[in-house]
């Protein structure tokens, strides 16, 4: 796991459109879980896509640990960034079962290593008995766990989560949040999570960033998950 450092990042979708991100700078320390809160269209998901390498920034630098992922000259392709991502609607491959979805990013390992890692992740997310099921045979919560396991499997230096609870109903949300925080803590994952729901962020994250009208500010830290844990 490594520290994420972003300096002066700007981005716009098309040339004549206004900037959707303007001179954004932030740091996520190693092992820290940071939440980004903001309304739709505020650019928070775009920030994750830029970090993952799915979009090319107009300006700015993205560093992960000692590596430069993107600056004026360098643009590391997504496959080489070592950044895992959980997509809003999970994007589980419909033609692969849960186990194969989790093993999808382990193609550089030997078969034996791959099987071992797959079982580890299935166990971590309590999905062992569902390994042979296809995504459409899983509930929303189970799909979310598979998506998390798939993103964690290659051992990314940073995990990005884009609205990970938006497809879940309120009750399930509650239990999954607690589970997710436990898993992230257990694996010591550095994580950047995006949500428009304050409760999501407060339940999971150590620290919150709030985006409003293009301004990125540190949120009030009074009610973050870290505080809850401290109190206990």
């Amino acid at each position, binding site marked *: 796991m490594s520290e994420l450092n972003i300096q002066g990042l700007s981005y716009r979708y098309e040339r004549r459109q206004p900037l959707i991100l303007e001179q954004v700078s932030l740091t996520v320390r190693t092992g820290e879980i940071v939440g980004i809160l903001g309304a739709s269209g505020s650019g928070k998901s775009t920030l994750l896509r830029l970090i993952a390498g799915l979009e*090319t920034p107009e300006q700015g630098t993205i560093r992960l640990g000692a590596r430069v992922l993107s600056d004026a000259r360098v*643009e590391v*392709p*997504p496959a080489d960034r070592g950044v895992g991502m959980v997509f809003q609607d999970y*994007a589980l*491959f*419909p033609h692969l079962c849960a186990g194969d979805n989790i093993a*999808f*990013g382990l193609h550089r390992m030997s078969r034996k290593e791959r099987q071992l890692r797959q079982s580890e992740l299935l166990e971590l997310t309590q999905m062992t008995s569902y390994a042979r099921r296809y995504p459409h045979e899983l509930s929303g919560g189970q799909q979310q766990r598979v998506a998390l396991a798939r993103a964690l499997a290659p051992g990314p230096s940073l995990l990005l989560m884009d609205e990970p609870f938006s497809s879940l109903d309120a009750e399930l949300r509650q239990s999954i949040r607690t589970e997710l925080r436990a898993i992230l803590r257990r694996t010591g994952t550095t994580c950047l999570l995006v949500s428009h729901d304050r409760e999501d962020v407060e339940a999971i994250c150590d620290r919150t960033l709030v985006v409003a009208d293009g301004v990125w500010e540190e949120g009030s830290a009074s009610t973050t998950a870290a505080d809850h844990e401290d109190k206990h």
Partner: protein
Amino acid sequence: MRASKIIRRYTNGWLIASLLGAAAILLPILYVMSGLLRPVNENWSAVKAYLLTDYVLGSAKLVLSTGLLATFMGVLLAWLVVGYTFPLRRFYRWALVLPLAVPPYIAAYTYGTMTSYTGIIQSTLRNQFDIRLPHGLIELSSTRGAMFTLSIFLFPYVFLLMRTYLERQSGSYIENGRLLGRSGWSLFTRVVLPISRPAIIAGAMLVTFEVLSDYGVASYFGVQTISTAIFQTWFGMYDIDSAMRLAAWLLVIIVAIFLMERLLRRNRRYGALSSRSKPLQPVRLRGWAAAAATAGCTLVFTIGFALPVAQLILWTGWTYSKVWRADFAHLLVNTLTGAAWATIIVMALAVLSAKAVRMFPLAGAYALSRLMTSGYAIPGAIVAIGILAVFIALDGWLSPLYVWLGRAEGALVLSMSLTMLLAGYVVRFMATGYNAVEAGYDKIPRAYTEAALTLGHRQGGVFWRVELPLLRQAILTGAALTFIEIVKELPLTLLLRPFNFDTLATRAYQYAIDERIYEAALPSLLLVALSLLSVAIVLRLERGRVR
């Protein structure tokens, strides 16, 4: 800086390969267009002075009359089966698409013979009922024959598009029209027609392009069109320059029609405001109205499908043993292997460029895809001339290599081979394969590709492990449709085939031209059977979309 990073990021094997493919496809078309810039020869002056006006008028007359009649039939029948219920409606909902399975050039000589003095209709009336029809009453010949045949066998394009549109998106508009007191004719003209305009125009355009491309029907009925003129100047006068000039002019007309279509559809934004449109509840017809609706559909179905197919089956029975010889198996092998190779190339190129278009998020990629698929609107004869010219030039460049390999100086190797015909098929039918793959890609969320990229796979890995398995159905559908279109293709095959290379289509046409109509029945019937498969695929796809 960002632009250069983006270009670097997306410039890869996929893009380069598909750009090369696009160039290869566009080259023959551009070559034809360049014909307009070359100096004219003596022949052309004669063609221009005495024949060109007739050709253009012949084409225009046929396009206008067929276009109007086919559109009228398609629109009326589509509204009938969507807006009303009557006996056999569910059957005619799909059965009225079946005339598409009868290639018009086959229908032309089938009907030409059936309606002649010795044909089944007149001889039955004469021998069984002693009725003698006045000469010229029902015989199909010249422009009347071509217009009838092309309208009856092409109207399903309009029918299918209009019916799909009405079934999927018109429910609330038409019901509102009914609530506001409109019914019958007034509902049809004030609501149904205006809202269906895009579907009607799209259908009418397909008919127009088919008529402009037609060679078989016009030449059988002796109608002078630009397409038949291209054949005449090429094979009659052996003047390829004038043929190319004619092709270029036809291309100009087609581009003009294309632009006109754009203009006609310019301000239509009333397609569907929501994807959750309510299906239309049809009104029940009773008594005479119901009987008339069933009778009308039955008449069109009988003329457009049942009658010609029954006639072909009967003729096949008469000549089966004579036509089904050792040589026929060879014919089948020619047809199927040629079509199979071309289909493989089309699908490979289609997948390659659809992937490149998906990866390259700029408008240029979309333009590339449109250019690569422009062949569908360009008549086979034009594609053939472009391909021939390019291949002869290629043979010229490769001449030193041929000499080195021991061939005579100036030998035509590529342009006498099957490669040339395959290239023609690829240019002409790229659209069929590409559109199927593109539709398949549209159904795969981009997040799948992005998820695979963040999991450490490169574009190649993403394609093989994620996209290809999900595209399988679309690729198979595209391949089946392309294959069948190629098997049916006549003018391109006639012009580009190597010496002594016959397919089902060319053999059927050859028999018909030689007035051996009964012998033409077996290859024609096989072509109809294959085309039925393609219609079944289209109907299945469309049913899936309606659901």
